[in-house]
């Protein structure tokens, strides 16, 4: 019998539909695989009983002919998404013991389609990080190693990518604020997809930076991403920033035909000091696009160099306000001081409950919003954000999609950058601009570096044109023929 955990979502879907396998079998295999992958620390809460119940319901659905792309497919859920009665803490100590009475819209959409939840996935605390080293539940290990050395899976969706790359989930939900889907996908040889801001509801997603946060998916290939994205997308009246647009059949966009399409290459993304092999791989990607019949167009995104500083003003500003609700009053951690009052409780709770990176961003955010600094920082950052969005708008008058590296490096070793916030922030240099502009984007695995670590290329599209991103991603995937798999050292 084939190893069911090695199937793609599309393959499993077809086998389920034909009745060749059941969701029960598929789910059992994955529960075993989840347990076998404990060394990765991808799951921080497992829900095997729930998974089996959901699998049985899915099998009944399939029998009844009610079959959708995600029916019966076991997935992992980033701890950022509220799941009713199940651990939801955004991997922060401050939400200790929190189990919501409600379900996020993204996960509800999956369950409505019959998907199966394996458990909750590790992540950087409140999605703040690029290496999954800031989680209260400890770092996630990348299934891919540099020889015998561990590497980080990227972040913040580190548990999502590790579980999918490690065959402990067929797909996983993820979230992107400045690159938290695409960068870890690049580090783990997985396909990460972030849709247009407003495509997915943020209802029930623990907020980091509201104007940037957007749900997305981690899968092992492009087709799976299209199937899963279609399931989680859609307008939701409970989120004022979600947009009432019809959700296309993303899978249907995978025609493999990009002839005549114009692909933009932003000159500002040739970063000094970037490893030569990333530059080379990018060039290779350009050649593949040409070979597939696309026209390559050099474009300029002149405000790119301001994207990172802009992001690190806007995101912390919103975070400083979004995280104010974690005060020890209503839920989660409460630390009191003997004989102390309300303010003492706030200070003790937040001092104990938040990790260093979260505290750092709350302080940055509080500072940039303060009287006397607001205009110089927050207001200016908003203006620059608009300029960055305009750069893309003008570029997309000339091209249909943009091709760049996803990250300026391959996965690094734990601790390598965790003492240097700036070095860590630089990981997001290629992903942040599109996040600021709210654009859809993907990271497609295309090759390995000299150390045998995966590298990805990023494809960006126009707002609401996820279909083109999928189409180009599909062609890139086929051309790259990335078939390498990590050695399963964790089993």
């Amino acid at each position: 019998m084939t190893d069911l955990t090695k199937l793609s979502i599309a393959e499993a879907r077809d086998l389920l539909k034909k009745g060749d396998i059941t969701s029960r079998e598929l789910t059992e295999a994955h529960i075993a695989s989840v347990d076998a992958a404990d060394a990765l620390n991808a799951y921080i809460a497992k829900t095997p009983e729930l998974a089996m119940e959901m699998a049985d319901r899915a099998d009944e659905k399939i029998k009844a002919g009610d079959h959708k792309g995600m029916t019966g497919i076991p997935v992992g859920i980033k701890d950022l998404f509220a799941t009713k009665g199940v651990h939801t803490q955004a991997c922060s100590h401050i939400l200790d013991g929190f189990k919501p009475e409600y379900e996020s819209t993204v996960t509800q959409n999956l369950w409505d389609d019959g998907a199966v939840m394996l458990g909750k996935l590790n992540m950087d605390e409140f999605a703040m990080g690029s290496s999954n080293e800031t989680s209260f539940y400890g770092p996630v290990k990348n299934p891919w190693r540099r020889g015998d050395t561990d590497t980080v899976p990227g972040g913040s969706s580190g548990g999502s990518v590790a579980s999918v790359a490690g065959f402990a989930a067929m797909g996983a939900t993820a979230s992107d604020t400045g690159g938290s889907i695409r960068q870890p996908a690049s580090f783990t040889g997985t396909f990460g997809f972030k849709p247009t801001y407003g495509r997915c509801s943020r209802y029930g997603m623990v907020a980091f930076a509201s104007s940037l946060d957007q749900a997305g998916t981690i899968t092992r290939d492009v087709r799976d991403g299209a199937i899963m994205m279609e399931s989680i997308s859609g307008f939701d009246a409970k989120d004022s920033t979600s947009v009432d647009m019809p959700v296309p059949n993303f899978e249907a966009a995978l025609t493999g035909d990009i002839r005549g399409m114009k692909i933009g290459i932003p000159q500002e993304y040739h970063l000094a000091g970037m490893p030569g092999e990333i530059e080379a791989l990018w060039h290779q990607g350009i050649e593949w696009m040409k070979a597939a019949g696309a026209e390559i167009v050099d474009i300029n995104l002149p405000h790119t160099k301001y994207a990172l500083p802009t992001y690190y003003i806007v995101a912390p500003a919103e975070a400083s306000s979004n995280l104010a609700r974690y005060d020890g009053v209503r839920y989660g951690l409460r630390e009191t001081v003997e004989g102390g009052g309300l303010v003492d409780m706030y200070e003790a709770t937040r001092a104990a409950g938040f990790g260093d990176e979260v505290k750092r961003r709350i302080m940055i955010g509080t500072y940039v919003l303060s009287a006397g600094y607001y205009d110089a920082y927050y207001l200016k950052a908003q203006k620059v954000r608009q300029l960055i969005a305009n750069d893309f708008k003008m570029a997309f008058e000339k091209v249909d999609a943009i091709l760049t590296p996803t990250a300026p490096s391959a996965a690094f070793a734990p601790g390598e950058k965790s003492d240097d916030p700036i070095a860590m922030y630089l990981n997001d240099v290629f992903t942040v601009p599109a996040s600021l502009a709210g654009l859809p984007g993907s990271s497609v695995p295309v090759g390995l570096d000299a150390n045998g670590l995966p590298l990805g290329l990023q494809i960006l599209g126009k707002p609401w044109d996820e279909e083109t991103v999928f189409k180009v991603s599909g062609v890139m995937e086929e051309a790259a023929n990335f078939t390498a798999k990590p050695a399963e050292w964790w089993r």
Partner: protein
Amino acid sequence: MSNYRIQGATGDWEVVLGLEVHAQVISNAKLFSGASTEFGAEPNAQVSLVDAAMPGMLPTINAECIRQAVRTGLALGAQINKFSVFDRKNYFYADLPQGYQISQFKHPVVGEGTVTLDLGDGKTKEVGVERIHLEQDAGKSMHDQHPQMTYVDLNRSGVALMEIVSKPDMRSPEEAGAYLTKLRTILRYIGTCDGNMEQGSMRADVNVSVRKPGDPLGTRCEIKNVNSIRFVRQAIEYEAQRQVDIIEDGGVIDQETRLFDPSKGETRSMRSKEEAHDYRYFPDPDLLPVEFDDAFIEAARESLPELPDDKKARFVEELGVSDYNASVLVGEKESCDYFEELLAALAAKTGKDAKKLAAKASNWVMGDLFGALNKASKSVSESPVSAKQGADLLALVEDGTISGRIAKDVFEIMFETGKDAEAIVEEKGLKQVSDTGEIEKIIDEVIAANPAQLEQYRAGKDKLIGFFVGQVMKATGGKANPGMVNQLLKPKLDG
């Protein structure tokens, strides 16, 4: 009233006042959640996941609250902003679950408008409104439920408030009181706030400063959350005097936030300018800017009832109601509703033009009804005599069935028993006697019984006719038609 001055040792001081009124919007649901807004529920019975700021919960704008703010703006003749923005006002407090209040800072939904104060004797004064913005109310901290702990009730958390900010146009405690009174009347007329200050659905922050007349504005203090019109006046009187005393003693006024203590009748410092929060306002990224079109505004305008100032003008000019009566009636929506209902019923019942009845009807409402209500400590809405019943009573006077004098007695019984006027008149046999023969018979008896008075009358004491009228009325128990008695008596006395 604008001559209100505080007499200090160094001369007269002028008081400069501006009010920020927080008015709870009448809406079924809260500003950003579907939870109910009804007053008086069990603690935390009306709290949605959004109101409790659970992780991942998002606000969504309740369009009805926007419409109510727009209606309020229109009623104050204010600029309506078709584009407005909700901002976050960040601060920590136990009854503020989000850690920020969603409010409007740079772009409020309503801009400049006007409130016309009625200062008595037909005098008016215009007070400018700077802006009206919408914001969430906070919850309520209860410090008296447990020796060490504070309890929090979030029922009010997220309820929509309109903050109506006046310009510093008022110059006396009376003007501030008149402003609040007028504002409350308007809000009640248009149904955007119930104006119940004792329930906290309307409260005022009062900005007070003093200066020598003609000088630039002085440093102001803000007295927070005053919850009755009387307290507003008291707080101003105290605070203005306090400021004058400080300045005259050579001190300076610290810009600060103060609280009014009604039991002591004084204000005390809550926090200084240095301790003031830095609210770190920024646009709420969970919400899109609010945009609406002219059609929305026009629909809101069409939904407005006749406003108090227009109503008063109509009462005086078209219905011939006295200026005083019109002012009082219009001042309370319930009174005005009662009067209008009564007048309509009276006109219908008698078939007469309302214009001919209005003055009399207004006198009756203001005199007999209000007098009785006052004595019984009841409000108009609690009146045991409905407007329809009142109209029936006045109709009986109008068609001569009973006299005005009898009507007063009937009304007393109505007020006590709630019975209809006609039933009482019937039951007690109070119908006016207009039968000539019957009255003549009684007159004859009265004349026969009082020969001495008759002699004096005939000797030239004309005034004694009053005595005979009185005797006739007494003999009929007041039911004789007084006009007929006069008409029939004189020829008989004259012989």
